[in-house]
């Protein structure tokens, strides 16, 4: 419990650091909300027009004043207003987040459901043809960029079979589950393919390590069945690196899968952040990055807690 409290206490500090970093970074990039809106036509503005627009976008104050006002707002639960959406930043983020969360979960389910059995199979059939096959497919999975796989799936389905998930408007899970699944299954496969490849490789190598440990040999010599050795004795220990990998990957996915969201036109968090950066929607970029950082910290914490559940010998926070 102490460990948990200590970890939670570091959250505000980390978030403060992230807030400064994102605030400065986005403003260091040349161009601003005015050039983002007007493009080269911004050159037609008189100084008075530019000042008026700068006031409208809230970029007419010195940086530290802007930062102070933003942080002050957050402490009161106000993340600011997105100039693109004309709505509170938090509302926009929370509207996009369910899709991203669902896509991340679905990809993880696919990755674990495919990757772990494949990895275990490869480890228990080490250096046999099936192991080689799994390793080759895993290598292909890891080295195929998601945009290649995504476009390949879209092209094959549309040109070969004349079908494609409905793109553009997204159907939330609770409104139309079937349509929702039809829209998310292909992006989840696209994301899950590379994810599964990583899981396969890490679970294979972890399993190989564990299978050569003394306690596994002991279990075998005591007459435990092959299945029992793998599932009861070896697997729980081999799971730790898989949990670490999955946690990190899941944390990244919660930040939005920009390329896959672009290809499948999914209105998720990743696409929203990309558009906000391109449109120099400062409040939205800042709010979204803070939100993503917070999620990442939560996931990391859950991963640490999962270690304890998997291996009771691990005592978190002990010196």
């Amino acid at each position: 419990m102490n460990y948990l409290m200590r970890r939670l206490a570091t959250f505000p500090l980390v978030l403060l650091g992230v807030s400064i970093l994102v605030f400065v970074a986005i403003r260091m990039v040349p161009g601003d909300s005015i050039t983002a809106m007007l493009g080269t036509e911004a050159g037609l503005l008189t100084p008075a027009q530019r000042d008026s627009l700068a006031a409208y976008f809230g970029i007419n104050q010195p940086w530290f004043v802007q930062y102070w006002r933003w942080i002050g707002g957050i402490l009161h639960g106000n993340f600011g207003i997105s100039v693109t959406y004309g709505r509170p930043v938090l509302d926009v983020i929370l509207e996009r987040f369910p899709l991203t969360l669902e896509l991340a979960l679905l990809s993880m389910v696919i990755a674990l459901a495919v990757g772990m059995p494949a990895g275990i199979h490869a480890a228990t059939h080490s250096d046999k043809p099936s192991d080689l096959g799994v390793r080759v497919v895993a290598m292909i999975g890891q080295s195929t960029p998601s945009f290649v796989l995504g476009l390949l799936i879209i092209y094959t389905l549309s040109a070969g079979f004349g079908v494609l998930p409905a793109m553009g408007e997204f159907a939330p899970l609770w409104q139309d589950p079937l349509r929702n699944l039809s829209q998310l299954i292909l992006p989840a496969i696209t994301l899950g393919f590379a994810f599964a490849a990583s899981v396969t490789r890490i679970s294979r190598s972890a399993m190989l390590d564990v299978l050569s440990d003394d306690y596994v040999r002991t279990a075998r010599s005591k007459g435990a069945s092959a299945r029992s050795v793998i599932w009861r004795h070896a697997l729980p220990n081999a799971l730790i690196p898989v949990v670490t990998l999955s946690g990190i990957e899941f944390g990244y996915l919660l930040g939005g899968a920009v390329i896959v969201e672009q290809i499948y036109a999914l209105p998720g968090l990743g696409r929203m952040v990309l558009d906000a950066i391109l449109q120099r929607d400062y409040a939205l970029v800042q709010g979204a990055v803070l939100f993503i950082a917070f999620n990442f910290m939560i996931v990391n914490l859950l991963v640490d807690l999962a270690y304890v559940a998997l291996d009771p010998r691990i005592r978190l926070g002990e010196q």
Partner: protein
Amino acid sequence: MARHLTRTLLSAITVAAMLGVAVVSTQAATLHMAWSQDATGLDPHKQTAFSSLRLLELIYEPLVRVDASLQIIPAIATSWEFSKDGKELTFKLDPKAKFQDGTAVTSADVKASFERILDEKTGAAARANFLSIAGIDTPDAATVVFHLSQPDVPILTAMSDVNAAIVPASEIKAGSIGTKALGSGPFKLDKWDPNAKEMLSANKDWAGGATGVDGIEISVLPDEAAILAAMRTKQIDFALLNDPLVATLVPKEASLQLNRVPVLAYHVLQLNPSRKPMTELKVRQAISCAIDRQEVLDTASLGEGKVTGPLTIPALATDPSQLFCYKRDVEKAKKLMAEAGFADGFSATVIGATGEPPTAAAEAQVIQSQLAEIGVKLDIKMMELNVYVDAWLKGDFDMAIALNGGRADPYTMYNRYWTKAGNLQKVANYIDDTLDSQMQQGRAETEPAKRKAIFAAFEKHLAEMSPWIWLYTSYSYTAQQKNIAGFVPTPTGTLFSLSKVTIQK
């Protein structure tokens, strides 16, 4: 048993999902449209992005508009007239014109709209086109008189732009322009989810008559290959395309039709004549002679376009072969370089915006290899669009690959760069008395034949001085299902004719 059940369940879910995949809903008389870049805002006086203008043209109306042959035709105004001295422009408004809330469009709305554009607090980029307006009179509800400080023929063309849209005076007063879209155009905006979707419904009160469809649903599909895929599966009826690589694939689909039309926008290699050695006329001319424009077009844009001089307006453009060094002449280029004292060439950097246009990097690469033949070593620097715009506006480049927007009138198109008081003089970095005086003459001349002669001389001089190297104009592309009828593509790229498009059963 449990495993068998799980497997069956998974199979069922997969089949159900694939069935869901196959279900594509289509609503009768709603046009399903897609584009890769969404509008960036709803204030017609402030928005300049291509997609914003295309969306707002369906919702708002200016006083006049231009047709496919770039002739001025009525919109909110049914007629207009310049006074003999060219300093008064009178409009008669359509008595049937109504805003989408049912209130009539009156001269007071016109006056308030132009006052808003001219007010510096608004931040309207188009204000620069209307600085000659000295006063606006509204003798009655259907008449508007613009008093001009000097004869200004191009102002009429500038008024055809949606950046000069007429908005309700009451909405200006309420400060709701930009948050609420209330125009007098053929469609009402029912919903806008930025970067995702727009829903438009027909404006039954539109003075232009009934629209051909009940509504338009615009989906933002950022990847144009995905747009094409969605058209193959008939999810999308109509789409706007930017990338020639994708556009050229459309005719290969039996059920699809590609509409393409040359546009006014032009691809150009902007030189910076304030930076050495581009300060030297002979160096700039050498660059012009060393570039094979047709090869740039063929390689970067798959030949999808037409080599152009500075003027892209068909009625005014000169045959490019008549312009200075439009036939590649490397020997002449080398001679000019030697005469300028740069026989061994020089090094320079060319900037370009990633993906804007999609051919920018390819154009830069072809030009790099062509200029290498005369000893010019080009370093290509591709930037994110906003970073590029920032450098471009500061004139902070040796050379820049650009796709600059065209206008239906050469004065409106070029006064910003080539007049001494031009707002983008700092970008062009080139002051020329001849160009300035030709621009002023063209602005005041009302006789079409004389105007054409003035701008022909302007174009010839500009090509010879070579502050920029004009390359080619490309096409505007739209793709549609073959059962869509009535769309008229135009050189301005407007989608206004969607108002009369019908879906054949």
